[in-house]
């Protein structure tokens, strides 16, 4: 019986020096993108915090924008890390779907059910 779990797929994955230069450039570009996004989030977080916004007259809407902005920026960072740093973008489409779809689906459901249950708990005024 031949073992089929030790086929060395990674022997195919080697690349030459010239291809390596292009790949390294891409890595540094992605690094710059991630750093800029993180810096933006930190600056907004430090200067436009909830305590500062409480004094603004349309503070609540600004805070809503910032809140969703944080989440969207975090998802963008996650996209770069998973697809480029973890090389999932270079794997077969089938394994990409296997990894990403259940996780996205479950997390969306969990967020929905967490918000539903927590607002229900808050409504019952059960915490001191």
């Amino acid at each position: 019986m031949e073992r089929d779990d030790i086929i060395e797929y990674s022997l195919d994955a080697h690349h030459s020096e010239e291809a390596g230069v292009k790949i390294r450039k891409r890595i540094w570009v992605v690094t710059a993108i991630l750093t800029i996004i993180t810096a933006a989030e930190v600056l907004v977080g430090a200067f436009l915090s909830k305590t500062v916004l409480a004094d603004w007259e349309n503070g609540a809407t600004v805070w809503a924008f910032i809140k969703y902005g944080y989440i969207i920026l975090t998802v963008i960072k996650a996209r770069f890390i998973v697809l480029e740093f973890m090389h999932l973008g270079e794997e077969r489409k089938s394994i990409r779907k296997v990894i990403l779809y259940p996780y996205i689906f479950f997390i969306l459901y969990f967020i929905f059910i967490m918000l539903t249950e927590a607002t229900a708990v808050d409504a019952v005024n059960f915490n001191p």
Partner: protein
Amino acid sequence: MAGEATKVIDPKELWEGGRSPFSMSYGKMMMWFFLISDALTFGAFIITLGYFRYTYSSWPVSDTVFYHFPGTHAHIPLGYVALMTFILIISSVTMVLAVEAGHRMDKKKVIFWLGLTVVGGLVFLGSQAWEWASFIVGPDGHWKTWDDARIGWNPYGPPQYAQIFFCVTGFHGFHVFSGVVINAVILINVIGGTYEKRGHYEMVEKGGLYWHFVDLVWVFVFTFFYLL
């Protein structure tokens, strides 16, 4: 870094058996499956954080809690946490560069970049320990023992704030620690020439997947606990 994964193979041949239908070795695939399960565990922690926040009408604003910077008395809201995030992202970058060097069978560069990744991880762990100490001590900066923040109490607001802080950052810190250990073991193997003999540096890639996962979790923890 294309491999067999980019080759178009007839589905019948792919799924017929005797080979991986994902063009991915067993070890790498199982690392991905482990990362999915671990991501759900961390997801549960973050959901719990969200749940606690929604049940309280007032929750401490993190940049009024985390403004200390080691070695100075400056008030820099979220300053040190931002530096920690940056260090972890850079260690992820050095890890990717190590993987890329592995794909060119460039042993010296693999050792260089993987070594930097291990150092970055250790710096992050030390920083996290400093953050814990600074959180426990409280806003006035003196050790009081009876008054310090702990699992059941903290001076910043609801007790769950401290609980979530210790549990999430502690669990994450434990993953960073195990990642550092794994990377160190792989580094020793690289230096010893195990992967040169094997013909590929896939083990560095697998360690890299774990390390990037640790970084990714930190990005989410940073957003949901410190920013929101």
